[in-house]
């Protein structure tokens, strides 16, 4: 436990600005008074349920809705044919593909939306979907991603004109020739096929919406589980042809998102249609199975990876070939120019000579998605790939994995560092973080203990992962989603009495924005955080911006909050100069007040200035009254948080069960706004990592049936499977971010899976195991121990 983990005493001073501060949102949550989408109750509200495909690939022969329509409590039954008449059967995805709102021609994955019912209550809606009779003609599904491009493979996307295969895109980065040349000349080459299986963010709150189309004003209000309310509003305007000012998207309290609530799902569109058709508010909440089988999955990359090194352990080049499963529709939520997200940072934290990646993405008869589960736009895959292959190299070189990493890190003086794939890392002190983690873990003692245990036949493993992320998308010149630039707005109003309201474009799903954004303004203006209200998640009441995902809230919107505060401070300084009758240059700012240089007794507080700004009397010439400002922040670059993780596991040699005994995480996210919240985010991500490494996987049988459609089959860690986390930190501010903060929301989810897997593989070293794929369930570990390790897909 580090100092910041220790709860403060009651007398401890609460910070005006950065520091440990209890969350402003908690008093409502502990009373059960949060307002989640399913808590929204409107007069006359109806309920919607969706009929989904039982098959992965089938032609729709006919749909008979007559029995459902005859149900006494049913008000509407809608099929794809109905939507086609309205021009709404298909909608754009976030990757410029299209996705069926309700299937018209055929179904393309199990769980795909086929029809919906609106009824008086939730139970009747569910009853009625059972009354819809759909006749399907079974088609051979494409389940095995490795055969998706084989000759004669069934074509999934027959809706796209001229489509004759299941190819989505090819993509490459780096220099193939330079990389091949280094490989030809290298002392050591290690190759592994590294699989990151399909997983699912599975937030505790599933997806849902309440749509209320007001007939007279024509205004649509949509309460919805969205991480990006503004982007959703614009997309609804484009999809449905509704005028944008007549759409209000409200993301109230959200029960976890993890990227799964970035896309627009067909259910949201159906709820809107349901409200238009019935003239009443319509609520839709998916159940857990619907959530697991139809909403945004994550990962599903097969990464053939080669690493070239000198015999002394100098890493020289990395080469990766990826086969990516994008499911039936390309619904990846990535910036337009980055079809593979930010996988290009696969060179990791190492200074190497050359790198190259080639990738092929394909369709299969599985749910769409691909960028979710706290992945920082595919950096999870990139970090797992490099950290796993570096460990395989350490195995081959018989070199300690910590020593190998320390030898190859990018050095502090090399920043800003341009990687071989063109990413400009802003700042880093990797060795310091690594050594801190080793110190906290007692690394040398752990290795001694391991040696001793190996003598006795006990299986103890120590796994290391060192990650660098690229977060805070992003600069408008490079990054947009469907043409919307990835900048974020912020508005700040200081009221006459010096209290303030800050309106932000990003939206919290548990990250604590109401606290941290108040702290950012407090740090800049000296107004106590409790005097600052943070408004978010409502498009009618916040400025435009692209939302919360990819750890972008602090890097982008946090910067906007700092800059808007500085704008206010600049104006306040002019007002203060008038109040104190000195020139602006003669004023000195200490947090919360301006004083005359050399005479601190002559001073005014920001609250005094606020009253003067709104009050009677003259202001300095040319100055408008009021103390409000707004900005739209366009980041200059991404920020590059990093961290060093060490995991200790024990593997039972008789049952192959893995127990995570310890986990040490040192994170460097630059300037730390609220250490308590940062550590909370890290803890959550570490748990994700243990889950993915040991138990989580969305799997399918050969007919494309999803075998992980409930929380009985899709296993998520409980308190019994995870240890008490040991956290530490270093601080390397971002040089281009106004407050030097880098973002941390996804760091641990990105960084921890390789630490756990590396620990298990390390434990299995006596069996000659150099690689084993996630999820490392007892049976898969057992297979690895017996020389039968096989990929999960």
């Amino acid at each position, binding site marked *: 436990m580090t100092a910041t983990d220790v709860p403060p005493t009651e007398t401890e001073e609460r910070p005006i600005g950065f520091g440990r501060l209890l969350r402003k949102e908690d008093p409502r949550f*502990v009373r059960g008074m949060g307002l989640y989408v399913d808590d929204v109750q409107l007069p006359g509200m109806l309920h919607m349920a969706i009929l989904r495909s039982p098959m992965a690939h089938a032609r729709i022969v006919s749909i008979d809705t007559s029995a459902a329509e005859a149900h006494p409590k049913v008000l509407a039954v809608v099929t794809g044919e109905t939507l086609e008449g309205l021009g709404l059967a298909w909608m754009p995805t976030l990757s410029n593909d299209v996705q069926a709102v309700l299937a018209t021609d055929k179904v393309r994955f199990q769980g795909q939306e086929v029809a919906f019912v609106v009824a008086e209550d939730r139970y009747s809606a569910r009853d009625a979907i059972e009354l819809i009779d759909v006749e399907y003609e079974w088609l051979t599904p494409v389940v095995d991603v490795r055969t998706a491009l084989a000759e004669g493979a069934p074509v999934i996307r027959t809706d796209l004109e001229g489509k004759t295969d299941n190819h989505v895109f090819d993509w490459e980065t780096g220099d193939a020739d330079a990389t091949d040349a280094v490989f030809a000349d290298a002392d050591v080459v290690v190759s592994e096929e590294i699989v990151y299986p399909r997983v699912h963010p599975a937030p505790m709150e599933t997806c849902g919406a309440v749509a209320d189309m007001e007939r007279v004003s024509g205004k649509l209000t949509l309460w919805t589980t969205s991480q990006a309310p503004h982007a959703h509003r614009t997309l609804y305007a484009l999809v449905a042809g509704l005028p944008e000012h007549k759409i209000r998207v409200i993301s109230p309290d959200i029960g976890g998102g993890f990227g799964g609530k970035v896309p627009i799902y067909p259910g949201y569109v159906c709820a809107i249609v349901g409200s238009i058709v019935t003239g009443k508010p319509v609520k839709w909440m998916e159940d857990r199975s619907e959530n697991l089988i139809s909403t945004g999955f994550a990962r599903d990359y097969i990464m053939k990876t080669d690493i070239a090194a000198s015999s002394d352990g100098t890493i020289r080049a990395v080469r990766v070939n990826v086969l990516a499963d994008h499911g039936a529709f390309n619904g990846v939520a990535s910036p337009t120019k980055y079809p593979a997200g930010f996988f290009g940072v696969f060179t990791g934290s190492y200074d190497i000579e050359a790198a190259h990646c080639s990738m092929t993405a394909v369709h299969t008869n599985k749910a769409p998605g691909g960028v979710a589960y706290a992945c920082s736009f595919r950096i999870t895959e990139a970090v797992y790939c490099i950290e796993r292959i570096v460990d395989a190299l350490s195995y081959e070189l018989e070199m300690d994995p910590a020593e190998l990493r320390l030898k190859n890190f990018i050095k502090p003086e090399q920043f800003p560092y341009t990687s071989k794939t063109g990413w400009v890392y802003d700042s880093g002190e990797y060795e310091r973080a690594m050594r801190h983690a080793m110190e906290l873990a007692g690394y040398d003692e752990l290795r001694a203990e391991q040696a001793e245990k190996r003598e006795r036949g006990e299986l103890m493993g120590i796994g290391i992962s060192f990650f660098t992320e690229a977060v805070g998308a992003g600069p408008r010149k490079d990054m947009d989603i469907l043409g919307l630039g990835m900048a974020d707005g912020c508005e700040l109003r200081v009221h006459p009495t010096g209290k303030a309201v800050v309106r932000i474009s990003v939206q919290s799903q548990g990250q604590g924005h109401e606290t941290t954004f108040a702290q950012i303004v407090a740090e800049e203006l000296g107004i106590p955080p409790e005097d600052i209200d943070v408004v978010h998640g409502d498009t009618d009441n916040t400025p435009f911006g692209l939302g919360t995902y990819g750890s972008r809230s602090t890097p982008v919107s946090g910067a906007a909050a700092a800059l808007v505060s500085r704008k206010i401070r600049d104006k306040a300084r002019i007002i203060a100069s008038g109040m104190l009758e000195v020139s602006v240059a003669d004023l000195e700012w200490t947090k919360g007040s301006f004083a005359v240089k050399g005479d601190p007794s002559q001073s005014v507080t920001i609250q005094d200035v606020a009253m003067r700004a709104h009050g009677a009397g003259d202001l300095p010439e040319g100055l408008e009254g009021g103390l409000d400002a707004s900005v739209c922040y366009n980041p200059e670059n991404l920020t590059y948080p990093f961290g060093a993780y060490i995991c200790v596991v024990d593997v039972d040699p008789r049952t192959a069960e893995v127990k995570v005994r310890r986990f040490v995480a040192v994170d460097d996210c630059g300037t730390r706004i609220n250490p308590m919240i940062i550590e909370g985010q890290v803890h959550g991500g570490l748990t994700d990592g243990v889950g993915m490494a040991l138990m989580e996987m969305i799997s399918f049988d050969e007919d494309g049936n999803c075998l992980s459609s409930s929380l009985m089959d899709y296993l998520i860690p409980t308190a019994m499977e995870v240890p008490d986390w040991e956290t530490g930190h270093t601080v390397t501010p971002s040089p281009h971010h106004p407050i030097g903060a880098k973002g941390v929301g996804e760091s641990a989810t990105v960084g921890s899976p390789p630490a756990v897997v590396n620990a298990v593989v390390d434990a299995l070293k006596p069996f000659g195991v150099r690689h084993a794929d996630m999820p490392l369930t007892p049976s898969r570990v057992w297979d690895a121990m017996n020389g039968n390790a096989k990929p999960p897909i």
Partner: protein
Amino acid sequence: MQVTVTVNGTEQVRDVEPRMLLVHFLRDELGLTGTHWGCDTTNCGTCVVWVDDEPVKSCTTLAAMCSGHTVRTVEDLEQDGELDPVQQGFIECHGLQCGFCTPGMLMTARALLDRNTDPTEAEIREAISGQICRCTGYATIVRSIQWAAGQSAVSAMATTNGGQA
């Protein structure tokens, strides 16, 4: 069918379908939306409430089964404007992020501390092992419950000493 359930100390009489789940009875019939629904399969525990002082998962309990019984939900933890120590503990030790699993966790925590005033870390972890949190990684939940146990010990001492502690 008619059910009579005493919820948070108030008798509630309603006509409901025999198949109505307790979680929907609480949320949709009584408007007690502090109890959440998360999975269908009794795995996640966001729906934990007390039935006759025992924590149960209300997503797999029928409202009809509770007729003639007492139910306590998260809305009843705060008494006379005073938060229960488990509620305060979750605030003090950052035992929640999105808040969705929190009501269920709080009800289990209160039940645990009513039976065991000084649980070990292992006992706390076991008590909440039927519940899933996707945000916190559990360590801060454990600390929150320990904090509450500590507070209860302090107030017990205060009572014993006639408030002089």
